[in-house]
């Protein structure tokens, strides 16, 4: 049978639009869902995605990807890598699955919004594949950890985490709801696919894939690469939307959507990826520091992409660059200190050799972050574990929902950015977090942070055990030190030898 060559029909089908006879354009594409911003249909029809694929091609490629990742998993299952992997690496996987797997389904809904409501036919076409991509990511990242539930209940948090009020879940939901689920199709294409996926998922997944191969975890490495190749494709939906907005006089708004998305993504990655790269991954398996990764993937590459589109670097670019020396160290120390409140076992990563590495990658680490870890290390070596566990809650930011942190020790500088709005006092961890709020207070003002919930009596009993119960953490799920304090004991041994 004669088949028309792809080149002859592809452009026609991917750009197909039609004339509605039973409904108006406004009924077909409500502004709230489509977000056309007054730009006429002819303009949206110029949407030109750089990556093109047909359905048969898509299915063939995806089938191969799945077959590859699942067969690596099946082949290595007997090898029981998980039983001999470093506990820091196990924590990395458990943290990753809980934060990401179920949100892949949410991403599928976001792709669905574009597939149905985007006025650009090319966007609808791409997003249809995007919904399938994200569905696959949800399934594969639930299926792989499921095999390990027999090892620890923490693996079950791949599915459980996002159904709870754990502080990390609240933070992840607050971010993903904002950029994926509560925006119109055009904003989704910019905030989710351009802001978040081009920059940050790229980094999380490429960084993790590199660390996974280094650590010998071929199952995780193949899973991650399989996901990342989809991301690299569907992340390209935002660029053409940005071009259309800019060409039609909406540059300011395009810039704002990008800026909010980048800042919020940065904060989430500072608590998820930062600790993993600089503290959990065993020293000998680290490829780059988190800061080096961020500079390469976000500061340099992303800025270039923005410039190519005719956008500016976000106004907070300098703040972000400076925060690469601060925020994730604080997030890590916070997660470790409040370890009973997370579903994974944080690796302190603060033994003698690790601290040397940290000082080298982050000059001044010892006289700042190291000062806090000194007190913790002494307590552990003097039988005072109780002093290394929390008795109150950290104050969290009303935007990112993460602790308000800053530089400790000799260069103490921890700043709050408060705002009184309609009689309520909000606290923010940075100028940019407060700025995000100020761009659209109606969107954010009702949200209750964990602290707000605690103070309004939603958490009972109103103490730390009550908060742990509220967060859904049961026995065998609460985090503890991944290496049972061996890193602290190493200092004691050093002292004895000396």
């Amino acid at each position, binding site marked *: 049978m004669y088949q028309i060559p792809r080149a002859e029909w592809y452009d026609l089908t991917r750009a197909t639009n039609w004339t509605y006879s039973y409904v108006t354009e406004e009924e077909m594409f409500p502004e709230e869902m489509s977000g056309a911003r007054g730009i006429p249909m002819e303009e949206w029809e110029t949407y030109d995605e750089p990556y093109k694929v047909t359905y048969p091609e898509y299915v063939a490629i995806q089938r191969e990807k799945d077959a590859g990742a699942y067969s690596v998993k099946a082949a290595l299952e007997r090898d029981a890598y998980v039983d001999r992997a470093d506990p820091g690496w196990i924590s990395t996987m458990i943290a990753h699955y809980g934060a990401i797997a179920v949100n892949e389904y949410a991403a599928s809904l976001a792709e669905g919004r574009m597939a149905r409501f985007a006025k650009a036919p090319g966007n609808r076409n791409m997003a249809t594949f995007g919904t399938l991509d994200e569905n696959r990511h949800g399934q594969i990242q639930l299926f792989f950890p499921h095999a390990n539930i027999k090892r620890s209940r923490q693996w079950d948090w791949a599915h459980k985490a996002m159904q709870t009020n754990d502080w990390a879940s609240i933070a992840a939901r607050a971010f993903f709801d904002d950029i994926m689920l509560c925006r119109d199709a055009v904003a989704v294409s910019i905030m989710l696919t351009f802001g978040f996926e081009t920059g940050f998922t790229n980094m999380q997944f490429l960084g993790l894939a590199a660390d996974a191969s280094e650590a010998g975890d071929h199952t995780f490495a193949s899973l991650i690469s399989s996901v990342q190749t989809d991301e690299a494709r569907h992340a390209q939906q935002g660029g053409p939307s940005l071009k259309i907005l800019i060409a039609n006089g909406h540059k300011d708004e395009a810039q704002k959507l990008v800026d909010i998305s980048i800042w919020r993504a940065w904060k989430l990655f500072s608590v998820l990826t930062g600790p993993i790269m600089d503290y959990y991954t065993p020293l000998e398996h680290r490829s780059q520091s988190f800061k080096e990764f961020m500079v390469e993937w976000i500061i340099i590459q992303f800025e270039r992409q923005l410039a190519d589109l005719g956008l500016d670097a976000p106004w907070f670019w300098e703040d972000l660059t400076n925060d690469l020396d601060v925020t994730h160290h604080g997030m890590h*120390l916070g997660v470790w200190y409040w370890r009973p409140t997370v579903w994974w076992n944080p690796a302190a990563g603060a033994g003698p050799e690790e601290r040397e590495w940290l000082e080298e990658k982050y000059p001044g680490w010892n006289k700042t972050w190291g000062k806090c870890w000194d007190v913790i290390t002494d307590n552990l070596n003097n039988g005072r574990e109780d002093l290394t566990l929390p008795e109150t809650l950290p*104050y969290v930011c009303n935007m990112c929902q993460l602790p308000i*942190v800053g*530089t*400790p020790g000799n260069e*103490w500088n921890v700043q709050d950015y408060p705002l009184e709005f309609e009689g309520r006092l909000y606290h923010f961890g940075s100028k940019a977090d407060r700025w995000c709020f100020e761009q659209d207070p109606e969107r954010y003002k009702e949200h209750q942070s964990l602290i707000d919930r605690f103070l309004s009596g939603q958490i009972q009993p109103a103490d730390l055990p009550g908060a742990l119960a509220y967060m859904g953490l049961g026995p065998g799920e609460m985090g503890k030190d991944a290496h049972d304090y061996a890193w602290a004991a190493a200092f004691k041994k050093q002292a004895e030898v000396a």
Partner: protein
Amino acid sequence: MAAFPINSNFQGDFVMQLVPVDTDDTMDQVAEKCAYHSVNRRVAPQPDKVMRVRLHNASDNFPRDMKVSDAGWRPTETLDIIFADQ
């Protein structure tokens, strides 16, 4: 006498913390309550210093015997707790 939540920013620590104080507490008692969650946990003690309370980023400290109820704070007010000579 009533519970009153404040946001404690303790000198040398890395994070702000929710600390419940009492409207009858003096500033010295507020500092003590904040210190409980920072000193000997992540901040080394400084026994030769006193701990003073000020509004976040303010230059003046509150008088040591001033009561919370007289300080004019909003609930969850951010306070710096700093080591000082007197």
